[in-house]
C-alpha cells in the first residue's frame, strides 16, 4: 500500500494571545494513491481547514504533511505554488472560475503555466471539457453557463493537468440536487475509471458514500473513520 498523503500531528490555530483559536488540534491522516476519501463533519468541525493544510493552500501551525514524497510544509511560497500546479487539482464550492476567460481558457491557463504551447493546451482543455460533458461550450464565459456547468468546467480545469490528487471543497454546495448528483457522479467516475486520488470535503452523507472511506471530524479532531468500500490499489 502506497500512501500518497501522510499528515502527522497537524495543528492549526488562528489569532494570537487571548484571541487564539485552535481549529485543528492534532490530526493524523493518510490517503493512499487512487483512494477516494471524504471528509465530513458539522460546520466548524475543521474539515475545510484540514483540506487547506493537506492541499498546500495553508501552512499548519505544527505537524508534517508528506505528499508524494515531498514535505510540503518546508516548501517556500514559490515552490509550493509550483507544487500545487504540477501535483494537485482543486474544485472549489463556488467554482472559482476566472469570469473574463472562456471555458476553454479557464482550463488552458494552468496547462499553459506548465509550459505547454497554446495549441497543445487548447487540445487538452477541449478534451477535458468534452470529458465532463461540455462539448461545444468552449467559448462560453462562466456567466453564460449554469452552476452545474461551471462546476464541470472547474473539474475539467482541475483534472486536465492529470494531478496526483484532486481536492474538492464542498463541490455541490452551490448546486441544486440534480446538478449536485451529476457533479458527484463525475467526480466519482474520475476515481473509478481513472484511479484519480480524491479528497473531498462535504457535509452531505449521500455524496460522501461514493468514497472508499469517510473521515469524520468534530471540534478539530478526527473522531472516527468509516470504510465504506474496499479499496484496491491499482
Amino acid at each position, binding site marked *: 500500500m502506497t500512501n500518497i498523503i501522510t499528515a502527522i500531528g497537524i495543528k492549526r490555530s488562528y489569532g494570537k494571545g487571548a484571541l487564539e483559536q485552535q481549529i485543528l488540534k492534532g490530526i493524523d491522516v493518510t490517503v493512499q494513491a487512487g483512494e477516494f476519501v471524504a471528509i465530513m463533519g458539522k460546520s466548524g468541525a475543521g474539515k475545510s481547514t484540514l483540506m487547506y493544510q493537506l492541499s498546500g493552500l495553508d501552512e499548519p501551525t505544527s505537524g508534517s504533511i508528506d505528499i508524494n514524497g515531498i514535505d510540503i510544509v518546508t516548501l517556500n511560497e514559490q515552490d509550493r*505554488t509550483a507544487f500545487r*500546479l504540477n501535483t494537485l487539482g482543486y474544485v472549489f464550492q463556488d467554482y*472559482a472560475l476566472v469570469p473574463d476567460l472562456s471555458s476553454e481558457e479557464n482550463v488552458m491557463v*494552468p496547462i499553459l*503555466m506548465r509550459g505547454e504551447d497554446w495549441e497543445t493546451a487548447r487540445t487538452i482543455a477541449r478534451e477535458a471539457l468534452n470529458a465532463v460533458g461540455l462539448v461545444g461550450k468552449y467559448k462560453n464565459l462562466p456567466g453564460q453557463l449554469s452552476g452545474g456547468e461551471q462546476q464541470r468546467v472547474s473539474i475539467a480545469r482541475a483534472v486536465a493537468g492529470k494531478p496526483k490528487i484532486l481536492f474538492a471543497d464542498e463541490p455541490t454546495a452551490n448546486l441544486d440536487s440534480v446538478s449536485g448528483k451529476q457533479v458527484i457522479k463525475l467526480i466519482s467516475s474520475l476515481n473509478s475509471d481513472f484511479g484519480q486520488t480524491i479528497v473531498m470535503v462535504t457535509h452531505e452523507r449521500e455524496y460522501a458514500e461514493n468514497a472508499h472511506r469517510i473521515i469524520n471530524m468534530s471540534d478539530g479532531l478526527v473522531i472516527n473513520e468509516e470504510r465504506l468500500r474496499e479499496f484496491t490499489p491499482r
Partner: protein
Amino acid sequence: MLRTLRIGLLLGLRQIQRANIWTTSLIIFVMAITFLNLIAVSGILVGLIVGSERAVQSKSIGDIIITERDDEETILQTQRFAQELALAPEVDTYTVRFTASALVEANYTTRTDLSEKANTINGRLVGVDPAAEDSVTKISENVVEGEYLDPSEDGYVLVGSRILDRYTEGLPDSEDTLKDMYPGDKILITIGEATKEFTIKGILDLKVDEVSAKIFMPERELRRLSDNIDRNANEISIKLKQSTDPIAFKESLVRAGLGEYAKIRTFDEALPKFLIDIKKTFNILGIFIGAIGIVVASITIFIIIFINALSRQRQIGILKGIGIERHVIEVAYVLQAAFYAVTGATIGTLITYGFLVGFFDRNPIDFPFSDGILVADPMSTLTRFGILFVITLFAGFLPAWIIVKQNTLNSILGRK
C-alpha cells in the same frame, strides 16, 4: 519569462476585453485628459514666450539683424550691405532702418497756459522706406487707426500705441505719453536744433514693444531732420527665403568681409535676453506642472488598478491556489495599466497635434504681451509619453503587487 508574459498577457487582455465599456472609456478619458494637461499646460506657458518671439522676429528683428558695432554709431558701409543683400539669392526682402532719439511734443496748439507742463516725451524715431519695411514686417497690418505711410508723402508719421495715453491707461509708465492723439493731429519732433511739425497718419498697435513704442517716418525725413549725410543706417532687418539657413547666410556675409562694418546676428542670437530668461523660467514652470500631472496620472492609475485588483482579490487567490505564479498576475495588471496609459496618451497626442496646435495657431490666446500659441515639440511629447508610460507601469505594478502578495488562502476566503 516568456511563459509568464504570455499568460499575463492573456489574463490582462481578457480583463480589458470583458471590462465594462463605459468604465474603460472613463479611465481612458481621464488618462487622455491627464496627458493633455501634461502637454498643453506647459505647452501654453512656453507658447506665450514663443508667440512673443515669433512676433519679435516677424515684426522687428527678422531672420538676420545687422546693427552698428559697439564702438560705432551706425552701420559702416550701409550701401555696400544694401548692394550685397539686393543681389543675394537667399534674401527674400530686407529693410534699412535709421533711428534717432527725439523730443516729441503734442497738444502745443491748444496749450494756453505756458506755465503748464508741455505734453512732451522722449521718443525713438525710426526712418524707413515704407514699402521695404512693410515687405519685411507687414507692419501696415498693425495700423489700427488711420493709414500706413505713403512713400511719396512728406510730413507724416506713424505713432506706436505705447506712447499714446489712450492705449496705455493703467500700464506702468503711462504718464510718459502723448495725450489724446488721433490720426490727423499734429506733433512737433525735435532732434538737436532741428524741429519739424508732423501729422499723425496712423497708429500702430502690436504686442512688440520694440515697434509699438516708436514713431515711424520715411527715412529721408529722418535723415534730413538728424542731418545724416553719410546715409549709414542703424539697423538692417533681413527676411530670408524659407529654405535658407540663417546661420549659413550670416557666415556668408561675414566671409564676404562685412563683419568688420557691423554686428551681424541671427534672430536667435539677437533675441532679447529677457525673453530667453522668461522662456527658461516658463520651461521650468512647465516641467514642474508636468511633474504634478505625472504624479496625478500615476495616482489615478494606482487607484484604478488597486480597486480593480482589490475587487478581484478572491480571483487572484484562486489563480495562485491553482498554481499560477504571482508574476503572471502582476503582469496582467501592469498590462492593463499600460493599456490605459498608452491609449489615453495616444488620444491625448492625437487631440494635441490633430486639433489643439492648429486651433491655437489660428486663434492665439490674447495675452497682454504676446499672442500665446500651443508649443508641443514632438521630441518633448515623446519624452513625456515615455515618462508617463514608465510611471504608469510602476503605478500599475504596485497595487497588483500589494494584492498578489496577500496570503493565498486569505485571498480565496476573502479574509483580511
